[in-house]
């Protein structure tokens, strides 16, 4: 299909991204997709370089292990928050529910890595600053919004349609969590506007680095 070929180049990507009436949201979206303007290769992808998740494994295994590492982190975070005693009642119930869902993501991703013949990433040792309910909620919001952006950043790099379907199924749940926390924080449920902005691997890893202690 001629259209497909044209689309593959960065030039046509810019054209594509220019739709939507010049909204600033799409401009931000474009910026987040990188600006490798010299490249004309058809393997150029939205997440940045092809090997962004190479340190986690090859191809889909690497992407899944990257996601698994983030899900381990979220699970540990909610576990610590529940134990902290900073929350009660419905807020505690929400946090507990979100933590359970992250744990399910860990299980699903571990299985997915194994089914592809890969070795699941190890659970990182984590430590989170749990000072006050407010600061914890803010951190939760940051982590969930980042998680959603991380999945979005990798979607187009996934090769297997089955893995993609699973990642999308998790991605939108991260988006739900993020929106719920933003609501609790009195912030916009769609901080990026009508189009969620993806995050690349270096950005995500840099953001979570302070919480990984080993």
């Amino acid at each position: 299909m001629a259209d497909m070929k044209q689309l593959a180049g960065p030039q046509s990507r810019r054209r594509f991204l220019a739709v939507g009436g010049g909204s600033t949201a799409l401009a931000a979206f474009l910026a987040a997709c990188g600006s490798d303007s010299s490249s004309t290769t058809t393997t150029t992808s939205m997440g940045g370089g092809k090997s962004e998740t190479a340190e986690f494994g090859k191809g889909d295994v690497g992407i899944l292990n990257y996601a698994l590492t983030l899900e381990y982190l979220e699970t540990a975070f909610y576990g610590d928050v529940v134990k902290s005693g900073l929350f009660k009642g419905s807020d505690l119930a929400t946090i507990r529910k979100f933590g359970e869902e992250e744990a399910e993501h860990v299980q699903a991703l571990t299985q997915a890595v194994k089914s592809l013949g890969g070795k699941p990433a190890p659970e990182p040792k984590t430590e989170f600053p749990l000072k006050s309910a407010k600061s914890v909620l803010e951190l939760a919001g940051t982590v969930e919004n980042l998680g959603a952006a991380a999945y979005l950043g990798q979607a187009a790099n996934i090769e297997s349609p089955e893995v993609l379907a699973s990642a999308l199924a998790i991605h939108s749940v991260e988006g739900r969590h993020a929106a719920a926390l933003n609501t609790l924080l009195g912030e916009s449920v769609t901080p990026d506007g009508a189009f969620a902005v993806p995050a690349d691997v270096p950005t995500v890893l840099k953001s979570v680095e302070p919480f990984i202690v080993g």
Partner: protein
Amino acid sequence: MSNRMSNEPLTNPELAAVHVDDDSEDLSRSEVLLKGALAAGAVYGTLAVGPYVRKALAMNGGGDVEILNFALTLEYLESKFYEEAKSRAKASGELKSLVDLLAKDEQQHVEALEGTITKLGGKPVAEPKFDFAYSGTSGFLKLAQTFEDTGVSAYNGAAPMIKSKEVLTAAGSIVQVEARHAAAIRLQNKEEPSPAAFDPPLDEAQVLKAVEPFIA
């Protein structure tokens, strides 16, 4: 179809009440798809929508333009729904701001999808006529929740078939916003913002069999 409808309780009766105009002779495939998706959602819950859409699109080759046109039809529906709701939903305070935000977001999705379809050399489908049967704030909220959850499932079901990476990321960017809308509306309804750990359709074979009568 009628057997199943009469034998089983509707999961979302309010969804079944949405009328998509089919008087026109050139009923587009997207409208047919939308009607089927709504019907599947009404009878089996929104989880049923993803595989329905996947199957229906796959049956016709389902190029990116067709997928985008289906998405566009859903966005037309949501956009119209919230635009009307500004005066119909009797919303105030926080909810009023949310309705305004959602109307704006969905309108931007419509414009982005129309633009993308045109860039791909396709023709954006015409906007169908919709008739939303609800009254009052609670009626609005109930229907809004169904639409947003349906939207998430529909995008998640169709997205793996998208061929262009750019289109896929754009669809992902939109579905995340739909998921955020869904969570916000669910909170307004005092329901779990994320009812399950995964948003996808699960029981595909069973659902496909059940929704086949809806496919024109």
